[in-house]
């Protein structure tokens, strides 16, 4: 049994493999002491190896994991597990976003990460959903129901939030504001993808890939086909587990 653990900024994800078979995936919130949470997740399991990735990887390594790989490598391996032909990968998580280009053999040839800022990440969407009074799950479908976006100028989480409040007070429909906020995130992501090698397809991983509005707007703006794995938030953990298997 091999286990991959992704200690992300917002959530902990774990993938368990038995030989070639993905046995199960688990996820919990990161909480205050992520590595202890992770040890909790591992209770009762008897893995051969545990490989950690994500923000908390080094702490996990100090405490229980047998090795680490970066999120870049983990998402590459994970994306290839779900889509063996993947060449360009976009991962958008709680606190960062990244684009990775692979060669045919699946080796990383180039990657990019967002600046030290919440714009273009899951955290931005989360805060904006809350400021409109919706849950994250409602937020995407809501944006999809509009075909007209309100003007939002700021990508800064703090400023965008005050823009949202002022639009609300001007009676702009919530769905239009939601669409605009999604577009703001998408335009950031498009900018990152465009700086990389061209590719006709894109594999989209990370929790934000569950958001249907982001997926559809990305597809529309990039003009490429976007593939989302069945368990997008677990791609990193799956990748780490796959790496464990090769050791």
């Amino acid at each position: 049994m091999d286990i991959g653990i992704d200690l992300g900024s917002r959530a902990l994800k774990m993938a368990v493999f038995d030989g070639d078979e993905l046995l199960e995936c688990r996820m919990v919130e990161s909480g205050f002491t992520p590595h202890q949470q992770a040890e909790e997740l591992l209770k009762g399991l008897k893995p051969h190896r545990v490989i950690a990735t994500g923000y908390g990887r080094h702490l996990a390594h100090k405490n229980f994991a047998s090795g680490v790989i970066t999120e870049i490598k983990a998402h590459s391996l994970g994306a290839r597990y779900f889509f063996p032909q993947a060449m360009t990968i976009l991962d958008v998580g709680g606190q960062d976003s990244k684009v990775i280009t692979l060669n045919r053999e699946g080796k990383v040839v180039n990657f990019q990460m967002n600046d030290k800022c919440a714009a273009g990440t899951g955290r931005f969407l989360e805060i904006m959903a809350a400021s409109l009074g919706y849950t994250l799950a409602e937020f995407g479908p809501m944006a999809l129901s509009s075909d007209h976006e309100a003007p939002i100028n700021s990508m800064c989480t703090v400023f965008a939030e005050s823009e949202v409040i002022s639009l609300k007070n001007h009676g702009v429909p919530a769905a239009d504001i939601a669409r605009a906020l999604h577009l703001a995130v998408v335009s950031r992501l498009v900018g990152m993808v465009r700086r990389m090698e061209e590719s006709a397809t894109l594999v989209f991983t990370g929790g934000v890939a569950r958001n249907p509005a982001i997926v559809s707007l990305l597809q529309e703006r990039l003009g490429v086909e976007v593939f989302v794995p069945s368990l997008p938030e677990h791609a990193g953990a799956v990748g780490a587990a796959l790496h464990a298997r090769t050791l």
Partner: protein
Amino acid sequence: MQDFEVKAYPEMWHELNMDVERFDKARQMLGGAYTKIFLSQANRPQKMAYFDEMISEIFGGRVKELMQAKKEGRPVVGTFCVYIPEEIVVAANGICVGLCGGSPGSIPDAEKILPRNICPMVKSAFGFKAGRICPYFQVVDFVYGETTCDAKKKTWEILDRLVPTYVMEIPQMKKERDRTLWLEEVKDFKAKIEAVSGKTISSEQLAEAIKILNGKRQALQRLTKLRAANPAPISGKDALLIEQIAFYDEPVRFAAKVNELCDELDARAAKGEGILPKSALRVMVSGTPMALPNWKIHNLVESAGAVIVNEESCIGTRYFKDLITEGSLDMEKQLAALTDRYMRIDCSCFTPNDERVTQVLKEYKDSAAQGIIHYSLQFCHTYNIEEIKIREACQREGIPYLSIESDYSPDDVGQLQTRIEAFLEQVEG
């Protein structure tokens, strides 16, 4: 780990009109950082002891030497850039000291006056003077500035209010008329130094100075060559430190100490011994200068288990790759030879500057590196834009490549660590 301390000289600092209380905190922090980053390394060459001592005495011993020199009427010039014709200063029996500009601690002092969105090195250096927290700044007769990038060029005007700042015009292209201009500037600078010291520089003195600085540059070249061995006989951090000390130490003594260290490294290489196992990934850094105490990238890369084997940087090969032809005792010819050497510096402030791309590829090969990290200080437009050409060249040659733009703040350390580790995974294949 041995006990290490950057030594305190509060009385002397008072004499130099420094903000002693604040400075003393900085001193303690420097000692702590040095212990953690440098002294924790296993397997360090023994001859690093001299350079440890130089850091321990950075705010004392060396400053005393400078104060003594001043008493003897020798000119002491503060510098920022490798375009300073050091030979002329040394010919007048003077001393050049590279001023520190690598610490986040002095930036708030600078930002009280300067705009925030300019190069951190310029801000840091300016802040050291504005806050009176650098003994070197306090001791110099004047600061040598030059018209390289806009951030520096315009900062000199403001810095001049705090300390006399002499500015040389550096051309932006390398045509014949640019060389003529630079030669004129070199002559003016000679006149300036002669005015400060009150003595004319003879061609014998200049010939001697050329020899001294060639000797220092050759010692550094030798160190660079030794780092090409696999396993690398010395860490990138230690080599960077030596390259930094090169800017404020006494040149003859420094060259001798670097050569002593090189003898030890030679012996190490002959035995196949290294600072890390042979399997450690080898990385070269290229880009903007890394002024003391900027150890950020080296520390991150080497903490991730790789070794840095070359710095294509002003604190690095750009400072010592070229020598001045020796042998002439004709002042005109000597100054022409000196000008030719300085015109070969491939700083990104020049356009076009394709020599640098060629040089980066050459050093990559010579140092047997396996990947290149381009490092540019934030808001350094010339290096940030020239980065495009370096990146393209690396893509063409199939060289693993990572570009980092960063300042001195610790904010981005987590993200940089991930990017550097991912880059090393990429190099590993």
